[in-house]
């Protein structure tokens, strides 16, 4: 069954207040076009979950679309902190459920496996755990191992309402290939009640059937497929295009202040009708050609 739709319809399927798992990692495979459209449609009070924060999460937080973030921390790497997320935490206007990379992954894995909780060695003795213990309803607990008698820290599973996953290749059913490292995207998609796939390339199901070992998300888990080239710009999509260093620097600079960030939104998000308008504004095909990945290097 074809689930092919527009970005606008896929975003409209997500009600205010939903829990959305996002696929980005720092500046890689971030669901940027999704973030833009969510902001334009005014969807808000979202819970956003992500293993390591990407720039799409930073933008959604900066735009006031996010009420609560469940994440393992993160920055953009050498280009600095996620200013909007840091500012919102400092100002106390973002409910923060902060973990680590592995504890986020385990919570998604537990959600994907349908387990009631999952034991973990991480977090013990840290102030991250002390903060999590303050949360109500609780997300951490203790159980005794019935085999050894050892006491274990356990985590509550994550079951997001929807995972929004930026992929390289998918068909109309949503059978999706993630190429390159995939961090916790598979666990996010499989923990979630449904998945929205945003794909750089749309191929026939026959093409998927010829390399099924590359499928990470099978179509039966997918509610919407959006075919949108360069939908992760300015982040990278391994094997398809590199990150746009100049545009990320521009965003990094703008997002240092609320005024600068608002200017960025006015220009690149509210100032355009859709993803195609954004593409024109950031340099169109000629810029995208520069970012195109070399097939050997992958960037």
């Amino acid at each position, binding site marked *: 069954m074809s689930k092919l739709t527009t970005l606008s319809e896929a975003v409209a399927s997500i009600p205010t207040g939903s829990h959305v798992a996002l696929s980005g*990692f*720092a*500046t*890689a495979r971030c669901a940027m076009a999704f973030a833009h459209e969510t902001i334009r449609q005014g969807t808000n009070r979202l819970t956003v979950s992500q*293993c*390591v924060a990407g720039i799409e999460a930073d933008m959604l937080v900066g735009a006031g679309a996010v009420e609560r973030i469940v*994440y*393992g*921390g*993160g*920055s*953009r*790497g*050498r280009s600095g*902190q996620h200013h909007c*997320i*840091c*500012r919102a*935490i*400092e100002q106390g206007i973002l409910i923060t459920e*902060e*973990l*680590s*990379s*592995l*504890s986020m*992954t*385990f919570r998604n*894995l537990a959600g994907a496996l349908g387990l009631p909780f999952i034991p*973990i*060695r*991480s*977090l*013990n*003795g*840290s*102030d*991250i755990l002390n903060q999590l213990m303050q949360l109500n309803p609780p997300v951490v607990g203790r159980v005794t191992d019935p085999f050894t008698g*050892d*006491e*274990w*820290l356990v985590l509550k599973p994550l079951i997001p309402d929807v995972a929004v996953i930026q992929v390289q290749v998918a068909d109309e059913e949503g059978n999706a290939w993630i*190429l*390159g*490292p*995939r*961090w*916790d*995207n*598979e*666990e996010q998609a499989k923990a979630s009640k449904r998945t929205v796939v945003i794909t750089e390339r749309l191929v026939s199901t026959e093409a998927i059937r010829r390399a099924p070992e590359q499928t990470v998300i099978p179509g039966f888990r997918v509610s919407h497929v959006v075919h949108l080239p360069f939908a992760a710009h300015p982040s*990278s999509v*391994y094997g398809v295009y*590199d*990150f746009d*260093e100049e545009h990320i620097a521009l965003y990094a600079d703008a997002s240092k202040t609320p005024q600068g960030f608002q200017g960025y939104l006015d220009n690149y998000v509210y100032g355009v009708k859709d993803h195609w308008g954004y593409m024109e504004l950031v340099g169109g095909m000629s810029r995208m050609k520069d970012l195109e*990945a070399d097939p050997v*290097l*992958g*960037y």
Partner: protein
Amino acid sequence: MAADLEYTSFELMAVTGARELKDGEIVAVGLGLPVVASFLAKRTHAPNLTILLELGVVDPEPIDIGSGLSDPRFWYRAKMHTSFADMLGMVLHKGLVDVGFLGGLEVDAYGNLNTTQLGDPKGKFRRFTGSGGGNDLASCARRTVIIIRHDSRKLKEAVSFITSPGYLRGNGERASVGLTGGPARVITDKAVFGFDPESKRMMLQAIHPNTTLEDVLSNMAFEPIVPSDVVVTEPPTAEQLRLIREEIDPDRLYAGS
């Protein structure tokens, strides 16, 4: 001969970091100096080192060192592209990672690291990166090596927020919360530290060439244990410097900083 070589403190720290890695070990790296240290070890005394990136990369051989974990330059020529569940779960959590490199905003006398926030957690504070895989490495790796700038604002008696546990308040407290392993070494731009086997308090091990004991101690906000057998850090060799400058980081993306 070695005394004639000129090198930066970054290069000395990278070489010192590389020396911490043994052939055949599994190391998890992130950003910056540990990357240079790990690739240097692999090209010299530890050819069978396995380098892991938490987001799902095994043994990459980058030709451009890249801007961080998420930069695909860093994933080039890997032997495997996989996931967090594999790298941090099935390798790290299972107990197979020998060494994890960690950096941070501040470290304390017992090797506890803060990468989360500076200031009063209940009042005014400045927010930074948080954990990422840092807490997981500190909790699950067999040992960790901490790389940090030698500055009394960064070397504290107690950190204001424990993102990644070291020995907590020392003397067996780490074991009492169910953790094994712990920090083995702290490498700064002035010195190298270990930890006292009993108290687990930081203990001076070596002072970098052209630095004095007074300079080391006066730039720390706590007193480390100073044993009588403190040595001078072994300087880089010409070959190590050549590898860093010509092969590992030719554009000085890291080593220039």
